């Protein structure tokens, strides 16, 4: 280092960075801590950490100055001369020129200290008061002051005009010096001889330079461009100007243009026009039109190019025309004049006028125009056209109108009959022959209706019908055909003839039963409302409803009219009640007294009957599918019970039906499991029934739990839950089964008595995803942890779950029979379909169609266990079979399986279920109790145990003996499935067969059986 340093030659002094920086830093720190803090913030210097003043500014940098780099102060910017008018009012501060010096200048100045400048103050000088305003103001003030001081003859403030400005502005002074006198125009030079002479001289000068001195622009010429005119004036001294300069040119702004905007800038001729119009507008009516031709310059187009000034010495010529301007520029001008109150209509009229008179310069109005509006004649209406729209359908009375009127017949003496006949005639007249046919068909056996087929009162009926038809046709066709003379003029008919609108009556009146005197009136009323709307389409729509209401109203008086249950008056009464409830809405009463003594099953069945009957009636009335429904109707009325064929009644399956079905069953009891919290038990001083049990599983699980115990419900409407239930049950019930199997003891095991409910298929499908996922995956995972294949199959099964559910829904019409308390494994426990399917899948192939086969398989499996034909399969299955097959089960034989052919599992299964349920419930209730009390609590435990056990077993369970058998079933069922395209009738058929063979109740509960079947199968594998 040293040697190196010696080699170098150093110039100057080295910069001692270190010290400098450190010292500066110290300084900055000291300053920061010290006095800087005392400074006001805007006076503090901003320094960086090394003590340097920080430069700031966007690009160039700079130091902070002023008040945060502004000229303001803390109080904001105030001029120095400002004094608050609060403290010292109107005190004028004398300004010194020193005020305008900078500090250094001032210092310099004070250093020099020129005494004569010291005292000089700054102020305004009237010398430069160019316009004299300040002076005038000042003078006025002076005058006022004076006036205040001395009393004057004129009291009050001196008028402004009296007090003239004491001083003249510099401009006036200059003018005066130039020879101007007040009251003269500045331009005025004629009176000035001196000016004259000067002008002459200039003229001569001009003559030399250019011989053109003739430019004599008219006085009133609007200045084309101020610049031009400005130049022009000095040159031409002969500008005419007014004799006296007006003091004020009062030109108030009256238009709505912006300040300084001159709409006539490029079209000066319109200024004139407008002025004239303004003056014209004062005289109403006639208006003189100013022709554009008359405009000043006589331009053909009336336009000068904007932008090119015209020289003072030039004339307008063609070159100056604005060839690019749009043709109808003047219209713009018109548009801009809309500030005028006269309105645009006049303008346009005027414009038109002007144009007609050849307003456009150079254009003449043509004497004749080639253009003609082409007109087409309207199409000729055919002579035979009748301006009336006919509605097709039952309203049309048809050709009967042509039939000569039947003779007038005295009404039958029976008043009731008369009313009935009139009512029916009215209806038929309104609604066509179809109604007659219908009612005839329906009331064939009814003696009251014999008049329809030519019995007593037929003539009267015919006559009435004709009248009605006549009347109807009169009203619909407006051809003025006079109503038959025989017809009495009622108020309504008269009103209709006169075109009056019938009074609005609520159609609800008609639906309530009315005393028989009112019937005729009612029907007229109804028919009137009918005809009122007869020409509208809505009539057609409302026909069925009104008809039905009418029918119901008729029912009140003549129960025979539509009496599907005439064999049983009590029933008929209930039916009417039902109808009333159904169509009147509102809160429903519970079962009326008569129904209370019926069994609930009977009630439910009846409810369904009513529903179907009502449907049939309505359909029959509406005239659709008359044959089919009347058949049905007759069927109902005849049988009373029901065989629902697959006709129109399928559509009945609505929620309401189920609801009504359910309604008959009140009060009903359901049982669920409920888990009180331990602390609640403690507070109630009770022993927790679930003590020692694991706490309820998290949300999903608990949901499952609740669903499990929903399974006890007999409620047919809770279809959704029941579907879930199907899945969930295995978790709780399977343990019992497996336990029974494992221990092989005949421990009295309570079966799950699962009353099956109909499933709303759609709900089931929609809700299936999550539930499926949650519930099927879980058991599989728990129970077959090692079986990956199974899991995979489960996944596959999920894919086809929708399909599966569909078929499931069909199967759900079936119920599982009550359990025998003594047969443990016999329990109709639900094996999850999933499990069954899994089993199948694991066993056989992983066909996507597996699901459905599994179902049928399940059923067939059941039959294996219990039925005769499959005993061989059962034989293979060892002791499970022993447990399971107890054909003599009394409960099983209790129910009767009637699988109706409904394509959809709507209300019918519900109903079917219901009766069975009833029976079952009754017989079963002890066992159910038992189960609920004893077994539910321990189910969780058991299921756990079972799953463990199952795990052990599952390893060897695969090589199963019954595999081939099951496979056979698969294939069979699959084949069958193919046969049945949609309804899976084959599987049902199969059920039928089995049910025929087995205890029927078993097949009824097919779903449960499926479950149990799956369970059994599992057991089989284990064995």
């Amino acid at each position, binding site marked *: 280092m040293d040697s190196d340093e010696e080699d170098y030659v150093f110039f100057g002094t080295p910069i001692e960075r270190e010290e400098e920086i450190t010292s500066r830093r110290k300084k900055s720190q000291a300053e920061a801590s010290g006095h800087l803090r005392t400074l006001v913030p805007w006076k503090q210097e901003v320094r960086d950490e090394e003590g340097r003043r920080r430069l700031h500014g966007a690009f160039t940098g700079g130091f902070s100055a002023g008040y945060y780099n502004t000229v303001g102060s803390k109080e904001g910017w105030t001029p120095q001369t400002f004094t608050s008018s609060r403290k010292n009012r109107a005190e004028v501060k004398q300004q010194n020129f020193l005020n305008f010096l900078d500090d250094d200048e001032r210092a310099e100045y004070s250093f020099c200290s020129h005494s004569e400048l010291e005292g000089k103050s700054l102020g305004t000088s009237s010398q430069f008061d160019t316009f004299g305003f300040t002076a005038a103001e000042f003078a006025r003030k002076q005058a006022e002051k004076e006036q205040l001081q001395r009393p004057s003859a004129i009291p009050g403030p001196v008028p402004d005009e009296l007090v003239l400005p004491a001083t003249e502005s510099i401009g006036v002074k200059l003018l005066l010096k130039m020879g101007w006198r007040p009251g003269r125009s500045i331009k005025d030079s004629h009176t000035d001889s001196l000016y004259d002479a000067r002008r002459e001289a200039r003229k001569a000068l001009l003559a030399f330079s250019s011989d053109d001195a003739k430019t004599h622009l008219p006085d009133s010429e609007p200045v084309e461009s101020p610049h031009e005119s400005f130049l022009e004036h000095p040159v031409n001294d002969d500008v005419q100007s007014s004799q006296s300069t007006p003091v004020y040119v009062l030109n108030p702004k009256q238009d709505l243009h912006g300040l300084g905007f001159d709409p006539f800038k490029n079209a000066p001729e319109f200024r004139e026009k407008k002025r004239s119009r303004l003056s014209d507008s004062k005289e109403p009516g006639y208006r003189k039109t100013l022709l554009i031709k008359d405009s000043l310059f006589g331009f053909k187009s009336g336009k000068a190019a904007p932008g090119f000034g015209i020289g003072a010495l030039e004339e307008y010529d063609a070159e100056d025309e604005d060839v690019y301007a749009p043709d109808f520029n003047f219209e713009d001008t018109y548009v801009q004049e809309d500030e005028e109150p006269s309105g645009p209509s006049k303008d346009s009229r005027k414009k038109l006028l002007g144009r007609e008179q050849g307003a456009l310069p150079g254009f003449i109005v043509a004497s004749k125009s080639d253009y003609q509006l082409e007109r087409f004649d309207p199409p000729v209406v055919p002579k035979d056209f009748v301006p009336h729209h006919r509605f097709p359908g039952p309203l049309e009375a048809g050709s009967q109108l042509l039939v000569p009127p039947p003779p007038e017949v005295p009404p039958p003496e029976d008043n009731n009959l008369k009313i009935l006949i009139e009512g029916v005639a009215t209806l038929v007249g309104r609604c066509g022959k179809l109604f007659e046919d219908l009612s005839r068909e329906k009331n064939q056996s009814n003696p009251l209706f014999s008049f329809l087929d030519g019995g007593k009162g037929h003539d009267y009926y015919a006559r009435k019908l004709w009248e009605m038809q006549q009347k109807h046709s009169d009203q619909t066709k407006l051809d003025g055909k006079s109503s038959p003379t025989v017809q009495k003029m009622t108020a309504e008919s008269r009103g209709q003839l006169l075109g009056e609108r019938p009074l609005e009556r609520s159609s609800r009146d008609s639906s309530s039963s009315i005393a028989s005197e009112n019937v005729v009136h009612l029907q007229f009323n109804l028919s009137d409302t009918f005809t009122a709307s007869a020409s509208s389409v809505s009539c057609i729509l409302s026909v069925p409803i009104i008809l039905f209401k009418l029918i119901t109203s008729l029912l009140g008086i003549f129960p025979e009219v539509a009496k599907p249950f005439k064999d049983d008056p009590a029933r008929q009464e209930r039916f009417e009640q039902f109808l009333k409830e159904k169509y009147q809405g509102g*809160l429903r*009463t*519970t079962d009326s007294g008569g129904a209370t003594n019926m069994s609930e099953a009977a009630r439910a069945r009846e409810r369904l009957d009513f529903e179907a009957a009502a449907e049939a009636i309505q359909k029959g009335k509406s005239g659709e599918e008359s044959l089919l429904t009347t058949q049905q109707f007759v069927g109902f009325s005849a049988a009373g019970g029901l065989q629902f064929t697959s006709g129109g009644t399928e559509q009945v399956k609505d929620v309401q039906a189920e609801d009504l079905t*359910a*309604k008959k*069953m*009140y*009060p*009903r*009891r*359901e*049982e*669920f*499991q*409920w*888990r*009180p*919290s331990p*602390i*609640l*038990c403690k*507070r*109630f*001083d*009770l*022993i927790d*029934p*679930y003590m020692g049990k694991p706490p309820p599983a998290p949300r999903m699980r608990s949901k499952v739990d*609740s669903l499990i*115990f929903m399974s006890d*419900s007999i*409620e047919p409407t809770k279809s959704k839950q029941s579907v879930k239930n199907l899945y969930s049950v295995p978790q709780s019930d399977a343990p019992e089964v497996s336990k029974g199997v494992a221990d092989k003891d005949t421990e009295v095991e309570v079966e799950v008595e699962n009353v099956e409910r109909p499933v709303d298929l759609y709900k089931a499908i929609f809700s299936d995803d999550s539930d499926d996922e949650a519930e099927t995956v879980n058991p599989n995972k728990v129970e077959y942890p090692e079986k990956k294949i199974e899991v995979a199959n489960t996944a596959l099964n999920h894919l086809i779950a929708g399909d599966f559910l569909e078929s499931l829904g069909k199967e759900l019409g079936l119920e599982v029979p009550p359990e025998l308390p003594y047969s443990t494994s016999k329990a109709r426990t639900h094996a999850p379909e999933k499990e069954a399917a899994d089993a199948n899948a694991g066993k056989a192939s992983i066909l996507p169609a597996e699901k459905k086969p599994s179902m049928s398989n399940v059923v067939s499996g059941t039959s294996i266990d219990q039925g005769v034909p499959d005993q061989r399969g059962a034989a293979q299955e060892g002791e499970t079979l022993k447990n399971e097959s107890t054909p003599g089960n009394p409960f099983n034989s209790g129910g009767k399986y009637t699988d109706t052919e409904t394509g959809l599992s709507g209300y019918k299964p519900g109903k079917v279920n219901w009766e069975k349920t009833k029976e079952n419930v009754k017989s079963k209730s002890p066992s159910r109790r038992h189960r*609920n*009390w004893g077994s*539910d*609590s321990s189910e969780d435990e058991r299921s756990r145990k079972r799953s463990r056990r199952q795990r052990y077993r599952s390893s060897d369970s695969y090589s199963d003996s019954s595999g081939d058998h099951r496979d056979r079933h698969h294939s069979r069922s699959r084949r069958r499935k193919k046969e049945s395209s949609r309804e899976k009738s084959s599987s049902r058929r199969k059920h039928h067969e089995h049910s025929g063979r087995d205890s029927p109740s078993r097949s009824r509960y097919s779903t449960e059986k499926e479950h149990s079947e799956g369970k059994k199968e599992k057991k089989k594998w284990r064995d």
Partner: protein
Amino acid sequence: MSISDLPRKEATVLKGHEGAVLAARFNGDGNYCLSCGKDRTIRLWNPHRGIHIKTYKSHGREVRDVHVTPDNSKLISCGGDRQLFYWDVSTGRVIRKFRGHDSEVNAVKFNEYASVVVSAGYDRSLRAWDCRSHSTEPIQIIDSFLDSVMSVCLTKTEIIGGSVDGTVRTFDIRIGRELSDNLGQPVNCISLSNDGNCVLASCLDSTLRLLDRSSGELLQEYKGHICKVSMRMPLFWLLTAAHI
């Protein structure tokens, strides 16, 4: 009990409420009664002498139900402010407030030991609250009802709730079971018979239904009175129950 034994004339009129009275309850021995109403107050009366004893004000909205402990030391009240107020009878102070209902609380009851309060809410739930601990959280929420729970009754081992969904649900704590008796009509109020074997449910169809609690059977229907929305009439029920 003959018809002559039925009270037929008005004994006393208790005046003081500045609004509709929503509930009136006797205490355990029948010497006092409590009323609550839309004036947001609970009033304690001596009905036999017609004396207004005390007013309890703290509710923010109408008070829909009130109940008193068997030892007459505490009150529980509920109302439109979704809270239960646990009062000290003598001081008139609120000891605790139970919040948790999602909407109005329709009815409230103490259990036998006054250790638990069960409230029935418009939020379709029954909630049990612990009076002994300082927790203000419900110790049990029963939400199996499908509609507003209008009324609640407690026995030694059971909680019975009547709901607008038409069910009277009995929750047996002893065996962990829920019994749901569907009456098909919205149940406005339920009351137990004195022997505890029956439950009387007043439905919105102007019918009182007497249910056998063990079997769930409908023992009787009473259609005499005409009230579309029948109010709670504890006295009437008592009588009716006694009558049976």
